[in-house]
């Protein structure tokens, strides 16, 4: 039945690579490590391509059962994989972009001491991510879900000797736990009510149910809890705070995990559960509102950031918001479409940013860049393409997917559309601001700086041999992936031309077809669609123009505007003090409570006290009793005789009674 008998090999290949590099990498040469990491990851990609080539929509979905896992009465969970149009798209994106970023990492991380560790973690991440997208039931998906969280933690804290990196890793892990809590409760609800976690069983049980219009009910609860999980993993309000900090990791990690793949897992999960969400309108609305708000909110923060990776991080959050907005209005395929194009252009943006950081010796502050178009033309060109793509300028990839989302959002409610368009304007503005600050004007960094200490955020240890006299272009092992991703960012959007992408995914989102049909007779009015398209293009161009005026024509203007809007600017630059708010609301009380109540009162006051006091008592008693052991034989004999006398006396007394 299945033409893809090796489906299970796709996730296991990177696992083998991770194991080999993890166990033997310490003693292997860098070339051997590179070979292992790239070969196993590349094989997974090749296999994915073969599977895609032999994929036929007619007989999808394919199943593959690897092994039994849990058997408990009628409830059973297997290690089984599932391949349909949706997981095929994810499979190709993850392996393809992942492989490119692996290649790039070779150049970027070559001089790092923990090279083998890095490559092993990257492969491990690939394994878990592929498990996540290929899972046939929620529990296997959950393994992947937790696993990518683990890999993310390991890679954010990769430079663990740095305090900020170590705590960023912990922050990511802990914030994700909050989301996972929601996800887990949703799974428990499914087990309780459907007796299964298998996609096919759960969806078959859900399909006959009618939509819960009252706003309460089982499906709404499951949907909302799943959304909590997705908000944690995909950095949505209110759990987005970990993603900007995650930029402490090496830049390839930011590209792979925190832009292209892992953070989109939440979108994938919501899309996968579309059957549930369609029958829970309240949950759908929450998804849409959270997505829309996150898109706008994160975009505004992105305006005032000066760290090149932080801008991209907030941009990622904002774009993820778009995807959730799409899912929330029922346009799941548009969300997945944007997920794909976003993986291309945001992966490219991060890799290009990494190339910039690499080229100027670990500096991430855009105020110390500038003029780099002359020094690194390839990076400039590819990053320019990615910027055009994310800004939504046709015919680049981002335009197609973003326009699709905005059109679908408009059909749901003009409010979503309006906020989406405003966000598109801001997106275009901050991305071109980034371009002008980085590549335009004159180089503002210190050029003659031979013995520079790598005290930048991205202290990748490649400063041993060559001092950074002046910015230089990156090696081809890094530029190659940039160019390929740039090509994808240009042409990637055309798969959505004429709704082909939507039709391809249609079988997965059968329920969503009702929504699509609703819109199709509306869509007869093409003028409206073209009008909206024009609006979104013009706001993108407007954002570009504004960035050009402020950061290229009159570079002194932004500072003056910032000074004039001091309070607002400070609030935005400090990310609306959300971190401080969370700190005061949750972290401080938790630490205070743990310190005073749990640590001092309970741990030291009750548990430690009980143990220590009983030990003290035992010592006190034995201190007195030990004098019995005098070493004098006759005193021992006396004790024995006295004991015997007591026993005899007792027996006599008992006998008398």
């Amino acid at each position, binding site marked *: 039945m299945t033409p893809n008998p090796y489906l299970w090999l796709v996730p296991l290949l990177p696992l083998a690579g991770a194991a080999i590099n993890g166990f033997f990498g310490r003693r292997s040469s860098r070339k051997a490590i590179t070979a292992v990491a790239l070969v196993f990851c590349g094989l997974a990609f090749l296999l994915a391509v073969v599977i895609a080539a032999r994929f036929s929509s007619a007989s999808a979905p394919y199943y593959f059962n690897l092994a039994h896992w849990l058997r408990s009465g009628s409830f059973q969970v297997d290690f089984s994989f599932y391949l349909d149009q949706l997981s095929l798209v994810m499979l190709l994106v993850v392996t393809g972009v992942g492989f490119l970023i692996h290649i790039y990492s070779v150049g970027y991380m070559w001089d790092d001491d923990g090279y083998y560790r890095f490559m092993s973690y990257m492969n491990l991440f690939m394994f878990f991510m592929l498990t996540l997208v290929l899972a046939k039931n929620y529990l296997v998906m959950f393994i992947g879900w937790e696993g990518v969280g683990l890999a993310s933690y390991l890679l954010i804290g990769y430079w663990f000797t740095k305090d900020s990196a170590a705590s960023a890793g912990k922050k990511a892990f802990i914030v994700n736990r909050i989301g996972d809590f929601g996800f887990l409760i949703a799974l428990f609800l499914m087990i309780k009510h459907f007796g299964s976690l298998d996609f096919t069983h759960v969806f078959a049980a859900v399909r006959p149910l009618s939509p819960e219009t009252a706003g309460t009910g089982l499906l709404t609860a499951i949907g909302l809890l799943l959304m909590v999980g997705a908000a944690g993993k995909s950095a949505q309000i209110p759990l987005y705070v970990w993603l900007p900090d995650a930029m402490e990791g090496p830049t390839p990690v930011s590209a792979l995990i925190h832009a292209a793949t892992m953070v989109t897992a939440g979108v994938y999960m919501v899309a996968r559960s579309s059957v549930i969400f369609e029958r829970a309108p309240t949950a759908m609305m929450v998804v849409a509102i959270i997505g829309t708000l996150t898109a706008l909110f994160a975009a505004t923060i992105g305006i005032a950031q000066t760290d090149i990776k932080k801008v991209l991080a907030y941009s990622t959050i904002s774009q993820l918001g778009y995807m959730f907005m799409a899912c929330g209005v029922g346009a799941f395929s548009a969300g997945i479409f944007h997920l794909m194009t976003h993986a291309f252009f945001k992966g490219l943006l991060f890799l290009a940013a990494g190339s910039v950081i690499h080229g100027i010796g670990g500096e991430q502050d855009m105020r110390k860049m500038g003029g780099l178009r002359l020094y690194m033309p390839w990076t400039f060109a590819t990053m320019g393409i990615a910027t055009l793509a994310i800004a939504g300028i046709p015919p680049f990839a981002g335009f197609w997917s973003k326009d699709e989302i905005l059109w679908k959002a408009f059909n749901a409610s003009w409010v979503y559309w309006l906020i989406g368009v405003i966000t598109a304007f801001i997106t275009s503005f901050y991305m071109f601001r980034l371009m002008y600050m980085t590549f335009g004007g004159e180089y503002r960094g210190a050029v003659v700086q031979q013995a520079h200490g790598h005290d930048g955020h991205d202290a990748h240890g490649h400063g041993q041999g060559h001092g950074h006299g002046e910015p230089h272009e990156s090696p081809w092992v890094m530029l190659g992936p940039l160019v390929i991703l740039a090509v994808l960012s240009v042409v990637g959007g055309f798969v959505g031309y004429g709704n082909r992408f939507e039709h391809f995914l249609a079988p997965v989102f059968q329920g969503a077809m009702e929504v699509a049909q609703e819109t199709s007779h509306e869509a007869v009015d093409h003028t409206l669609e073209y009008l909206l398209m024009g609006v979104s293009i013009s706001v993108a161009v407007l954002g570009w123009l504004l960035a050009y005026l402020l950061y290229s024509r009159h570079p002194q203007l932004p500072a003056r505007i910032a000074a004039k809007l001091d309070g607002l600017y400070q609030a935005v630059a400090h990310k609306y003090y959300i971190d401080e708010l969370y700190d005061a609301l949750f972290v401080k009380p938790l630490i205070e409570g743990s310190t005073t109540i749990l640590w001092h009162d309970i741990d030291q006051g009750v548990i430690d006290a009980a143990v220590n006091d009983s030990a003290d008592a035992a010592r006190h008693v034995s201190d007195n009793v*030990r004098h019995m*052991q*005098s*070493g*004098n*034989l*006759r005193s021992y*004999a*006396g004790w024995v*005789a006295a004991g015997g006398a007591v026993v005899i006396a007792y027996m006599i007394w008992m006998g008398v009674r």
Partner: protein
Amino acid sequence: MVPLSYYLVLSGILFACGVLGFLIKRNIITIFMSIELMLNGVNLSFVAFAAHWHALSGQVFVFFVMVVAAAEAAVGLAIIIAVYRTRETLNVDRVNLLKL
């Protein structure tokens, strides 16, 4: 026929003498003899009961006690000789190293 109680009283007196000797004497040899005295006091009560109840098990038990006593005498005397060789005394009050 001598009543059973006479034997038991004699046995108790023998045992008490043994205990008393064990407690008040300082010479190891004497203490050792006191132990033998206690054992024989017990032996006497065993045979007395065995004769009184016409049960063989008491007499069998006496043999066991004798065997143990013989073995104990052999080991005990060897230990006493060893102690004497190293400490050059048989006063138990001075053989008191085994303590805190």
